[in-house]
C-alpha cells in the first residue's frame, strides 16, 4: 500500500493497464487451452468420425476373421482345383492382413482391457485357427481327403472361430463402452473448462477491480493531500502578496526619496563639473607659467654660461696682468738697485770728501746732488713698488674673487639646471593634471548624466511599483478564487 502510494500517477495508471492486460492474456490463454482440449467434439471432428464410421462399415474388418471362416467353409464346397487355389490365395492374403493389423495395434494400443481382449483373447484362437487351417485342413483338401477336412472344420476350426468371435464381441463391447466413457469424459472436461473460464474471468475481474480501487484510492488520497497543500499555499500566497503590496507601497515612498537624492547628486555633480573645469583652466595656466618659467631659466642658464666664460677670460687676463706686474717689479727692483748703488757711491764720495778736508768741499756738493737725485729715484721706485704691490694685491684678490665667482656661477648653473629639471617635472605633472582633469570632467559629466538616467529610472520604477500594487491586488483576488476552487475540490 505504501509502495503503491509512492508511485506516480502515470505509474499507477500504467500498473492498472498492466493488470488488465495480464487478466485478458490469462483469459485468452485459458480459453486457448480449453479449446485445444475440447475441439475433439467440434464440427470437423464429427465429420471425420462420421466418414471413419462409414469406412468401418464398408471395408471388411481385418481383425475379425469372419471372411476367413466363410472362405474355409467355401473351400469345402469348391468344385475344381482352380477355385480352391483362389480361395486359398485369398485366405493367405487375409491372414497376412490380419497379422499386419495385429502388429499395428500391438504397437498402437496402451495397456488395458481392450488390449488384453484384442491382442490376447481374440488373437490366440485366430492364430490357432490360421495354423490349423494352413497346416492340416488345406493340405487335407489338396490331398483329396475331404472327410478329414470336414471333420477338422467342424471339430476344431469352428470352435476356434466361435471362440474368436466371442472375444471380438467382447472387444466391440469394450471398445463401445470405452468410447462412450471417453465421450462422457470429454463432456465433463468441456464443462470443467467452462467452469474454469468463468472462475478465471471472475478472479481476474476481481483482481482488476481491486487494483483499480487501490490505485484510485491512492490517486484520490494524493489529490486530497495536494488540495490541502494547494489550499495552504493559496493562503500563504495571499498573505505574502498582501505583505508584498504593503512593501511595494513602502518601496514607492523610498523610490521617491531616492529620486530626490539623485536630483541632489545630479546638481552637485554639475557643480563639481564646473569646479573641475575651473581647476582644469587653472592647471593649464599653471602649466603655461611653468613653461615660461622654464624658458626664463633656460635663458638665465645661457647667460650664466656666458658669464662663466667671461669670468674665465677675465681670470686669464688677470693672470696676464699679474705676470706683467711681476715684470714691472723686476724693472722697479733694478731701478731701486741702481738708485741704491748711486746713493752708496755718493755717501762714500761724501765720506772721502770730508776726509779730504778743504779740498773735498766741491766734491762734497757734487756728491750731495748725486745723492739727492738717487734719493728721488729711490722714492719714485718706492712709490712704484707700493703701487705695484697694491696692484698685485688687487690682481690676486681679483683672481681669487673671480675664481670664487666662477665657482658660484658654476654652482648657480647647476642649481638652475636642477630647478629647470624640477620645473620640467612640474610641467609634466601639471600637463598630466590637465589630462586627468579632462578625465575627471568627463567622469563628472557622465555621472551627472547617469544621475539623470537614474532619476528617470526611479520615476518609471515608481510607476512600475504602482502597477505592481495593482497587479498584486488582482493576484489577491485570483488567490481567493483559487482557494474557493480548492475548497470545492475537497468536498
Amino acid at each position, binding site marked *: 500500500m505504501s509502495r503503491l502510494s509512492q508511485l506516480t500517477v502515470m505509474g499507477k495508471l500504467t500498473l492498472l493497464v498492466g493488470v488488465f492486460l495480464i487478466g485478458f492474456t490469462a483469459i485468452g490463454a485459458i480459453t486457448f487451452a480449453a479449446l485445444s482440449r475440447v475441439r475433439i467434439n467440434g464440427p470437423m471432428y464429427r465429420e471425420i468420425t462420421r466418414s471413419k464410421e462409414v469406412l468401418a462399415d464398408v471395408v471388411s474388418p481385418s481383425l475379425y476373421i469372419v471372411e476367413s471362416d466363410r472362405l474355409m467353409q467355401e473351400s469345402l464346397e469348391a468344385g475344381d482345383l482352380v477355385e480352391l487355389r483362389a480361395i486359398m490365395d485369398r485366405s493367405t492374403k487375409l491372414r497376412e492382413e490380419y497379422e499386419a493389423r495385429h502388429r499395428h495395434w500391438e504397437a498402437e494400443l496402451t495397456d488395458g482391457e481392450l488390449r488384453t481382449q484384442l491382442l490376447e483373447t481374440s488373437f490366440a484362437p485366430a492364430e490357432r485357427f490360421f495354423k490349423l487351417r494352413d497346416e492340416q485342413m488345406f493340405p487335407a483338401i489338396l490331398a483329396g481327403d475331404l472327410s478329414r477336412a470336414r471333420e477338422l472344420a467342424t471339430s476344431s476350426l469352428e470352435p476356434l472361430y466361435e471362440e474368436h468371435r466371442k472375444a471380438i464381441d467382447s472387444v466391440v463391447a469394450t471398445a463401445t463402452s470405452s468410447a462412450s466413457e471417453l465421450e462422457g469424459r470429454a463432456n465433463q472436461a468441456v464443462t470443467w473448462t467452462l467452469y474454469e473460464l468463468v472462475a478465471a474471468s471472475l478472479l481476474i475481474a476481481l483482481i482488476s477491480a481491486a487494483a483499480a480501487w487501490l490505485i484510485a484510492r491512492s490517486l484520490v488520497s494524493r489529490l486530497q493531500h495536494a488540495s490541502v497543500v494547494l489550499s495552504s499555499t493559496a493562503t500563504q500566497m495571499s498573505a505574502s502578496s498582501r505583505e508584498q503590496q504593503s512593501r511595494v507601497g513602502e518601496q514607492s515612498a523610498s523610490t521617491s526619496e531616492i529620486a530626490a537624492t539623485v536630483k541632489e547628486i545630479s546638481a552637485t555633480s554639475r557643480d563639481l563639473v564646473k569646479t573641475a573645469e575651473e581647476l582644469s583652466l587653472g592647471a593649464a595656466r599653471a602649466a603655461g607659467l611653468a613653461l615660461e618659467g622654464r624658458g626664463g631659466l633656460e635663458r638665465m642658464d645661457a647667460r650664466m654660461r656666458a658669464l662663466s666664460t667671461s669670468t674665465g677670460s677675465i681670470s686669464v687676463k688677470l693672470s696676464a696682468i699679474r705676470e706683467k706686474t711681476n715684470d714691472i717689479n723686476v724693472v722697479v727692483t733694478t731701478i*731701486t*738697485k741702481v738708485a*741704491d*748703488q748711486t*746713493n*752708496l757711491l755718493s*755717501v*762714500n764720495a*761724501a*765720506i772721502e770728501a*770730508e*776726509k779730504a*778736508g*778743504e779740498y773735498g768741499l766741491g766734491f*762734497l756738493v757734487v*756728491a*750731495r746732488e748725486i*745723492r739727492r737725485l738717487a*734719493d728721488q729715484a*729711490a722714492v719714485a721706485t718706492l712709490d712704484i713698488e707700493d703701487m705695484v704691490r697694491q696692484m698685485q694685491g688687487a690682481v690676486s684678490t681679483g683672481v681669487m674673487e673671480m675664481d670664487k665667482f666662477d665657482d658660484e656661477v658654476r654652482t648657480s648653473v647647476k642649481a638652475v639646471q636642477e630647478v629647470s629639471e624640477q620645473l620640467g617635472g612640474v610641467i609634466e605633472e601639471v600637463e598630466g593634471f590637465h589630462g586627468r582633469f579632462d578625465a575627471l570632467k568627463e567622469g563628472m559629466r557622465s555621472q551627472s548624466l547617469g544621475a539623470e538616467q537614474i532619476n528617470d529610472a526611479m520615476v518609471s520604477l515608481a510607476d512600475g511599483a504602482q502597477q505592481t500594487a495593482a497587479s498584486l491586488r488582482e493576484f489577491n483576488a485570483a488567490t481567493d478564487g483559487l482557494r474557493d476552487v480548492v475548497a470545492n475540490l475537497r468536498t
Partner: protein
Amino acid sequence: MESRAPLMLLFRIGEGRYAVRCTRVECVLSRPRLHQLLGPPGAVVGSFPYRDALTPVIDVCKLFLGAPCPDRISSRIVVVRASERVVGLLVERATDTRALPGETLAPGARSDAIVTGIVDEGGELQQIVDVDALVARGFAS
C-alpha cells in the same frame, strides 16, 4: 775749519736716529753675503772679505734691540776702524750724510758711553755714537 760742523753719516736702529763722524768711517757697503762664524763673541753675526781680510760684522740692531737688522736694500754695512781693528757695523738706512752743528753733551754720559752727544734738529733728535765704545760693546759678550 773750526767753524765748520763735522760731517756725520746718519743711520737708524729701529725708530732711533743715530750718527757717526764720517772721519771714523772707512766706507759704506751694500750688505754682502756673510760667512757664518762658530761661536762669535757678542753681537758679531758673521764675517766678510774686505781688502783681502775677513772682517767681522756686528749687528747693531741685534745688539741694542735684540732683533736682527731687517733684510732691506737700505740696511748697509758701515766699515769703521777702531783700536787698530777694521769692523763692519750692520745698521738701517745708512743713506745720508749731513753736517750737524750744535752738538750738546749727552746727559749722564760716562767715559765708556756709546752715545756721546745729541743734536736737536727741530724736534728730531740725532744721537752721536762713539765708534770705539760701540765696537767694544759689540765684542763684549
